[in-house]
């Protein structure tokens, strides 16, 4: 038995089998349980260590598998990362039943997750770009259901993400040259520029994020939310792999400045755009752009903080996105539109669902006592220590995102309806969103609860993990 077979092979085999189940809630249950099981396995069973079951029987999970002469390697240091990814994916799979898209979502989501994990584990790493591209192609049916005409958002998503692959592949080839002649400044610059372009496309760095608000308007918010969580997370981990592997890259003098500038632009443009939105879905799209901006800012602090700031963001951002997108999905299904004019006074009809949206939005801003607060304040103060003007720009971005949240709050409580409060929405929907709000508060008040999950994450990146 090998680790890649368990954490990549099993989900890839399971995904098509789930298509055969007719009922969405059963698919969501099996998908969620499988992901949870894989998460627990990654947490509990050591790789490359013999485990004795009885006096005569023992087994060992090896760390690699060979496919067509190439290796897929999952090291023992990667296990906490796997546990986190599968654990968070389990949340998404369980929630898909409440969003009524489980039949499409769970099989495709599981395939995408397995492929992205394969992309992080493949050696030589340049194959990762090709595997990520395959995952992106599989994401298209998830984002554009067969009964709907494909919109501009999904087309742009496909174009921008596909354009990334050639840049990454070519930079991989140039990087091999840099390894053999590290003093060649021209080659080094070319490799860095191509790599930056590839990641700019993959991470939808300004101005390449236009597909996000468009998709939030035209597709299921839950499906888009999943992609907005999984794809940037996997791509950031892939980028960390580059930094970990190449000393010249992590010691590149301009790297912190480039990452900080890109992060600031994302926070600022995402925040400012959110302030003027009149559509709840687009608002979430812009907030996710701010999220990516903060992840970039956290990477700009690697020299001082290693990966601590980046790891702190992983759980709050995922939790916020899953609740926000589930709440929006429910609202869209029931009210057909997420425009401000359609959601006026909705807090009286959907108190828990609307609260989910508001809490997730405030958590994305980093309001005290909410899950987003500890990482955002840590990154903000880290940026302020480096450059006070940059911290002011972060403040403007956050203030703009807060304006969006206050506008949303104003709209959903604005009603002259005297009928009073009713609890609409399905029981499962209300319970899941209610639980989500509880966890946002819990992680905000007791951020140390996430420490056991996050403490081993940096060990996956030996040279930058600290």
């Amino acid at each position, binding site marked *: 038995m090998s680790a890649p077979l368990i954490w990549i092979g099993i989900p890839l085999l399971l995904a098509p089998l789930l298509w055969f189940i007719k009922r969405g809630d059963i698919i969501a249950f099996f998908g969620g349980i499988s992901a949870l099981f894989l998460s627990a396995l990654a947490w509990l069973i050591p790789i490359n260590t013999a485990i004795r079951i009885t006096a005569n029987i023992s087994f060992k999970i090896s760390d690699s598998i060979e496919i*067509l002469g190439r290796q897929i390697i999952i090291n023992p240091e990667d296990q906490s990362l796997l546990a986190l990814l599968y654990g968070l994916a389990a949340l998404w799979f369980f929630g898909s039943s409440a969003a009524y898209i489980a039949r499409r979502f769970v099989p495709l989501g599981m395939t995408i997750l397995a492929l992205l994990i394969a992309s992080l584990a493949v050696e030589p790493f*340049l194959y990762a770009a090709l595997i990520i591209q395959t995952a992106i192609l599989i994401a298209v049916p998830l984002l*554009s259901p067969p009964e709907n005409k494909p919109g501009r958002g999904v087309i742009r998503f496909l174009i921008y993400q596909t*354009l990334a692959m050639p840049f990454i*592949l070519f930079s991989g080839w140039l990087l091999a040259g840099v390894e053999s002649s590290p003093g060649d400044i021209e080659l080094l610059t*070319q490799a860095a520029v191509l790599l930056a372009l590839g990641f700019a496309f993959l991470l939808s760095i300004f101005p390449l994020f236009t597909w996000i608000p468009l998709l939030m308007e035209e597709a299921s918010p839950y499906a888009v939310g999943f992609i907005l969580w999984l794809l940037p997370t996997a791509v950031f981990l892939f980028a960390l792999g580059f930094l970990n592997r190449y000393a010249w890259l992590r010691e590149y003098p301009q790297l912190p400045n480039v990452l900080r500038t890109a992060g600031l632009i994302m926070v600022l443009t995402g925040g400012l755009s959110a302030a003027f939105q009149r559509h709840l879905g687009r608002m979430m799209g812009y907030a996710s752009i701010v999220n990516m901006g903060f992840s970039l800012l956290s990477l700009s602090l690697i020299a001082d903080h290693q990966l601590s700031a980046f790891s702190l963001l992983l759980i709050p951002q995922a939790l916020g996105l899953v609740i926000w997108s589930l709440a929006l999905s429910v609202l869209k299904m029931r009210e057909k539109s997420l425009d401000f004019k359609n959601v006026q006074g909705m807090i009286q009809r959907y108190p828990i669902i609307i609260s989910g949206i508001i809490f997730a939005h405030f958590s994305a801003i980093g309001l005290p006592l909410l899950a987003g607060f500890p990482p955002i304040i840590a990154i903000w103060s880290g940026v302020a220590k480096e450059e006070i003007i940059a911290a002011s720009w972060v403040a403007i971005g956050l203030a703009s995102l807060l304006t969006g949240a206050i506008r949303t709050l104003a709209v959903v409580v604005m009603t002259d309806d005297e009928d009073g409060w009713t609890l609409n929405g399905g029981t499962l929907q209300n319970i899941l969103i209610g639980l989500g709000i509880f966890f946002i508060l819990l992680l905000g008040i007791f951020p140390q609860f996430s420490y056991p999950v996050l403490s081993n994450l940096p060990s996956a990146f030996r040279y930058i993990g600290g």
Partner: protein
Amino acid sequence: MATQIISWISVFILFLATLSFLITQDWRWSLAALALLYLGVFWLTQLHWTFSMSAVKLVTGWMVATILGITRSALDPELDTPPQHLSWSQGRFFRILTAVLALVLAISTTPTVTALLPGIGAVEVTGSLILLIMGLLLLGLTVEPLHVIIGLLTFIAGFEILYAAVEDATLVAALLAIINLGLALVGAYLITANAEENQEKNR
């Protein structure tokens, strides 16, 4: 010498094929041009790869064109009529002019790129740059799924010619073939999405 001549003819074929993507609105012509394009890609790739490895690109390309063709032809014939909104003065003349500019840009950039990549000739670089630039141009001019997929395939084909000169791993060739086929399948999916509803409306 003969190889050089055939190679430059391939480059010319690539330009003609991509030009036809820009000016024709009929999907049949577009897909025929796509099949022709992969013939050029095959020839330029075999300058660096073995014949059998390069043939993978040709076979994949033709399979891609077939998948898209079969999907498109299965749609309601009423949807087949090409839109007539492009007059010579409004659309095609502009597109031809843009394509010529793209060709000039590709030719003028060729020496720089050739100098950057050791072991690759001007002919492959020119062919590749034509496909990359024209692919991007096509992507910028349309939101229609079939043409978007053709644009992406053109861009990737351009990249594949350059990449063939620097990387000859079989697995890379196989994965690139899978991505090309995957793009065709995604294209087929996007073309047929909502098609039934459209056909109902047309009835």
